[in-house]
């Protein structure tokens, strides 16, 4: 009878990465290397205004003086930033997609294979999608319907041309160009991403979603997402990510900025399934991402939900700056590492305004030789009267060669603050498994059920359709992980 460690690893090996195929499409990829010329070239291709080129160059010059952060609990060989190509677009892509009918059928096929049909009639009702393929956005659906509500949802490169005043006002206002090493790199070379603007009082009529795909070899993806929710508006946004299965590591360094004004609410969900590398740790995406939300307005709310199952290395701390009085920040996370995956992820909640509240729920699952770290900061400034935080981080271990770590930082400078942090670490209990099996449920299904139960508090925060997807993704990732 099973449930010996060797069986676990045997079963884990069977896991397949179904998004690992490559699209045979001709691409226009600039030679590897980074310099001011490359940045000027990217900016020129995108027909950017002078101020944006300046923004990029300032970031680049700052980046040259910066060092990669060393504090994260991850290890990787040095990255050669001159070996990466900073721009790649399908050849068929001319001046950006006009309508879905003009999108290269090969691309449509790619997304269909990934389960994201781009024909509006085939899509999930109520979800608008922007798809980013390597360095460019290739399609955005339901633009018309959204425009009727006054919602802007388009590639950020298009927003720079069509809504320069908005982009200029908010770009870099949450994550400054020199914020950290990877954010500076992104600010210098970002190529595309989504822009969302929800006008005052509007409740976005549908879920917005961006689907990121890295296809080309030796490229990095540096997307930039900016979401602005005006007074009293509401939006729910979801991103998904996949990449082909390759032996080399590829870099993904994105920046996401959210701005919520008075009474606005932004819900940002991520299902990250970048290629994780194989069982020996070959290949996989380095996912070094800066995500930050600014609750600028009173009673505003920003909620991050993430399900992280992919990437060789994840370095990511979606954060909230709770500036507005009575604003609310939330972070719900499920992160899974197996094989040789490493994840150092968590959040920062910076309480600035009065009566600000934050909730952190983090569930880490570690299997194989995966290393999983929760790193969180809750900071209460002197001005933040009556701040409240509740943090819960639980780790589940499957097998005796993985690791689970918790690094919570709590910094409080206001005597009316109340903070609570709880953390537990456990393995799937053998009696739980036996109990399920004694009811006729097979081992794999039992593990998947128990893990899903462990993650329930986070999954319930995802939009319904994606919660189901997330559950399945987790089940696939854990196929056979019996402890």
């Amino acid at each position, binding site marked *: 009878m099973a449930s010996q460690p060797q069986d676990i690893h045997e079963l884990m090996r069977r896991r397949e990465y179904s998004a690992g195929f490559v699209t045979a499409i001709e691409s226009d990829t600039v030679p590897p290397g980074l310099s001011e010329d490359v940045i000027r070239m990217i900016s020129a291709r995108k027909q950017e205004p002078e101020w944006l080129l300046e923004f990029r160059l300032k970031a680049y010059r700052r980046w040259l003086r910066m060092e990669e952060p060393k504090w994260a609990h991850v290890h990787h060989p040095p990255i050669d930033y001159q070996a990466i190509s900073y721009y790649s677009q399908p050849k068929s892509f001319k001046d950006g997609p006009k309508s879905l009918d003009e999108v290269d059928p090969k691309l449509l096929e790619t997304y269909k294979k990934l389960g994201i049909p781009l024909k509006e009639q085939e899509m999930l009702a109520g979800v608008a999608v922007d798809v980013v393929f390597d360095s460019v956005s290739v399609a955005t659906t339901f633009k018309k319907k959204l425009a009727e509500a006054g919602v802007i949802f388009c590639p950020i490169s298009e927003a720079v041309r069509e809504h320069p005043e908005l982009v200029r006002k908010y770009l870099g206002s949450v994550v400054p160009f020199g914020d950290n090493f990877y954010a500076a790199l992104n600010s210098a070379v970002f190529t595309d991403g989504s822009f969302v603007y929800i006008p005052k009082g509007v409740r976005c009529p549908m879920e917005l979603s961006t689907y990121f795909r890295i296809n080309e070899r030796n490229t990095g993806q540096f997307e930039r997402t900016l979401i602005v929710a005006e007074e009293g508006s509401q939006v729910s946004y979801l991103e998904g990510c996949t990449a082909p299965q390759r032996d080399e590591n590829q870099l993904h360094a994105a920046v996401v900025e959210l701005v919520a004004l008075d009474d606005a609410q932004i819900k940002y969900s991520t299902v990250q399934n970048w290629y994780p590398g194989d069982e020996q740790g070959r290949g996989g995406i380095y996912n070094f991402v800066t995500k930050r939300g600014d609750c600028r307005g009173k009673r505003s709310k920003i909620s991050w939900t993430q399900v992280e199952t992919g990437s060789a290395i994840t370095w990511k701390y979606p954060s909230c700056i709770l500036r507005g009085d009575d604003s609310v920040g939330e972070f719900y996370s499920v992160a899974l590492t197996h094989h040789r995956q490493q994840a150092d992820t968590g959040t920062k909640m910076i309480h600035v305004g009065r009566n600000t509240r934050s909730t952190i729920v983090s569930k880490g699952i570690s299997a194989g030789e995966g290393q999983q770290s929760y790193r969180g900061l809750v900071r209460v400034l002197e001005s933040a009267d009556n701040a409240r935080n509740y943090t819960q981080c639980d780790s589940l*271990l499957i097998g*005796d060669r993985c690791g*689970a*770590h918790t690094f919570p930082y709590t910094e*409080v400078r206001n*005597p009316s603050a109340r*903070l609570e*942090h709880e953390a537990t670490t456990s393995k799937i209990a053998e009696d739980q498994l036996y109990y399920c099996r004694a009811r006729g449920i097979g081992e794999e299904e039992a593990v998947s059920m128990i893990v899903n139960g462990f993650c329930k508090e986070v999954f319930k925060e995802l939009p319904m359709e994606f919660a189901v997807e997330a559950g399945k993704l987790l089940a696939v990732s854990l196929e056979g992980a019996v402890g």
Partner: protein
Amino acid sequence: MSLAAYAERFERFAAALPEAERAARRAQLQRFVADGFPTPRLEEWHYTDLAPLSQRAFEPAAGGNAALAPHFLAGTDRLVYVGGMLVSADSTAPERHSAAAPAQDEGVYALNAAFARDGLLLRLGRGERLPRPLQVLIAGADGAVAAMTHQRHRIELAENTEATVIFQFLNQGGGGLATHVIDVRLAPGARLNLFRIQDERADATLLTRCDVRQERDSVLHAVSFDCGGGLVRHDLNILLAEAGAETGLYGLYQPAAGAHLDNHTRIVHAAPQCRSREQFKGIVDARARAIFNGKVVVQAGAQKTDSEQRVANLLLSPKAEVNAKPELEIYADDVKCAHGATVGQLDETALEYLRSRGVPPAEARALLLRAFATEVLDHVPLAPLRAALAARLGLAGTDAWELEA
């Protein structure tokens, strides 16, 4: 950096040393000069910046006087150090004193290794039991200015021994700097009760580190109290090296106004079936800054580890600050590990309730603070020490039954 001042002081100090010790100590000083004082760039010193010390010059302390009699605990033996030197007249167990041999260390403790000469040496042979608790009083000399003292202490308990040791750091003033290293080895079945009481003056800098290595089935019960001022950093490192070892760390910190207090604990579970319990409580008021960083590491193979860590803080003043970081690093799967941290205030409803029963607000507050602190005080089985602590911590109104273990 003007660490040259330290190098210059060292040369003068070294001139008086036996020839044989000089090279080893000089190597330590050079190591210190190379590393410098730690700055917040080092993760372990994130909240405590010692860089300003490099701008200051300290003279090695040379003994002196201090009125310590009120601190003598009844029923204990005693070693008294003032200004870094043993005060024989006040010490009832001078045989426990020893000149420290040169040691190797790093960072700021390389400075300690370069200078440290005197300290406690407690060695118990197999099965021996220290008949009375040993109080080690370490105080600054009256009128000392910008003095520095560096000491190293060693406790070695052989198999199945038992000892109680109380380290008390107090009254260091005059802008002095003191560093202490306490090296503890517990052989199989040894049991050590280790108390640390820190009560320094506002302009003192005190850096202490205690390293404990625990072998099979040994037990450490360590309780620490911080109620002084100044800049204080204490590192408590526990290595559970063999199966069945058990460690309990408890602490109460109530830093004085303007104090900067940084408590670091690190428990490494390196063997299976070890147990660790940790509970620290902080009462932080009046421009005090308190840091608690507790780390638990479970190494690969340390299965059946049972570890729990709790830190609770009361933040009572708008100028006060609390930084807490309870960390877990786990490389084994069959473990039970939990930690919790809270920052908050006195329970308003409890205050209201007490007031509704006629207890005046100030007294009600005192009662609740006492209740909060008593949980840690309960870990001090030594009656005279418990009474002294209760008095010092402002829990003097505590009824006798609350202090009875």
